[in-house]
């Protein structure tokens, strides 16, 4: 199963992925028409900055198990196992923001969306561009990223590469603080730990 893999060290902060994402989630799916849409489409990938002011493309990790899914009160968040994707059902969402309090990556936003009932504010986050994938395309952010910060890769390959990178960091750099094992919420946080490793690498490099 292929997933979007983030290589934050390559991000130049050009925001091309955010534009591509917003367009991909508009009704018209073209840039110029999207600009005239109501509600104005918004990106589901967000460029954060690390402590040294570098760009960090931040998007839903589709964690398994997903903390947002377990915290969602009406059960609006669900998983499409075949694609390893966690989705929000806009019709079930009650806009309570419990998922904001659960997502360790802060990637969920609340606003109107072309795919929700008009006028209804709902939780919106990355959907792995499922509708594009069903048409044989790769996620829009990956297609737009020219610096190689976003890749669409087989997960086990990406995992292996990350593991190597982590062990390199651990053995070559003194003072790197990796998250403690056995933290709260047990396996809920496995995905979070993985991302922390990612972040520890970028922010303390």
């Amino acid at each position, binding site marked *: 199963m292929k997933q979007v893999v983030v290589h934050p060290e390559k991000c130049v902060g050009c925001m091309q992925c955010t534009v591509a994402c917003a367009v991909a989630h508009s009704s018209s799916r073209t840039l110029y028409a999207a600009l005239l849409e109501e509600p104005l489409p918004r990106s589901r990938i967000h460029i954060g900055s690390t402590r040294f002011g570098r760009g960090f493309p931040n998007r839903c990790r589709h964690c398994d198990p997903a903390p947002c899914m377990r915290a969602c009160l*009406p059960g609006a968040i669900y998983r499409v196992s075949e694609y390893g994707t966690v989705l929000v059902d806009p019709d079930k969402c009650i806009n309570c923001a419990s998922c*904001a*309090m659960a997502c360790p990556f802060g990637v969920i936003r609340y606003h109107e969306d072309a795919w929700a009932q008009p006028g209804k504010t709902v939780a919106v986050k990355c959907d792995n561009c499922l509708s594009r994938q069903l048409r044989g395309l790769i996620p829009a952010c990956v297609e737009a990223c020219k610096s190689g910060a976003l890749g669409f890769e087989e997960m086990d390959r990406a995992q292996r590469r990350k593991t190597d990178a982590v062990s390199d960091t651990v053995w070559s750099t003194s003072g790197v*603080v990796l998250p*403690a094992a056995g933290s709260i919420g047990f396996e*809920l946080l496995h995905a*979070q730990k993985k991302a922390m490793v990612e972040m520890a690498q970028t922010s303390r490099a």
Partner: protein
Amino acid sequence: MHHVIIGNGIAGVQAAEAIRHLDPESEISMIAAETFPPYCRPMISLLLEGAVTPDRLPIRPGDFYESRSIRAFPGVRVTAIDSGRARLSLDTGETLAYDRLLIATGADPRAIRAEGKTLAGIFSMRTVSDVQKMLDMLSSCRSALVLGGGLVGFKAAYSLLKRGMAVTMLIASGYPLSMQLDPVSGGIIRDTLVRHGLHVETGVEVTAFEGSGRVQRAILNDGRTLACDLVVVGKGVRPATGFLAGSGIDVDLGIRVDEHLQTTISGVFAAGDVAELTDVVRKRPWINAIWPEAAAQGWIAGLNMAGRSASYQGSLGRNVIRMFDLDIMTAGIVQPQEAAGTTQVLTHLDGNGPIYRRFVLQEDRLVGFTLINRIEKGGMLVSLIQRGLPLDPEEKRLLLL
């Protein structure tokens, strides 16, 4: 192996699913005092407000029990547990034997002391049937009185305001949600509610309710009389442990459990609002009666019941509330006097939004926060608290941005 689960709230449901996840074979029975299918309890205030209809409340498909081969006992109450003989007594007069038991009975509303409290029109707000009874009366009600400024009282007041009723809230502290909020954020919330028509009375109590059959007024301890035809009692909850007397199961604040959510009796587990765990920041026994804790604890209890050892390393109080134009999120310790050791409080207030951020640190570790508006990254802060990593000055500065 026969697994028996008492309660079909989120903790019970997650436990049943965890057991089935690992073990498609063994027998599962679920006993629940309520007859409604598993539903989203927090949404009952939306039902009161009129934002949703009852068909939106169920959290699982209609065939939940059948599809998972669960034997359901709806509308049945457990009256006693004989842990020596591994048997339950039911209010139907029957008994039921178990191999593994989960107590996920949630909480009951705290009662009040006032004369006339059994008059019609006086409610607590815990179950869907509480709200359905309120709705039946609503058309004949004009002014409501809400006792208590905790989460449930607050949500009741908000829903009734939205229904266009005149609402008075009586609270002991100066602002609603004083257990969750510091005075600055509490004040912002009180002012917002007042601006939208809520009437707040502080430092008074009801001594009696009067009316002929149905409540018409409340008598306060300062001698005043308040007209009201609907009363919601929101004085907090306490774990539903009444039926445990003589069971041998140790109850302190709630049912005491170890990190596997097992009670002091082997094979008997507890999870959710009824269970007492160690609070991760207070480092002492505590009950954090919130949905995500109940869900996660139910899941972990279920894994352990099905034989896979999984541990839970502490609970963390947290809440998010959206009302009018405010988003409010809090977690952990908000009142620093609770804090031990070297405590530091960082705040940032931008009055126009308003945007307010307040962080409580102990020995350079984040132990609590309050956010008003811009709450999207709250989950990151929650995980910072849960991981308990020390922060350096630069990281602390970043918190406030």
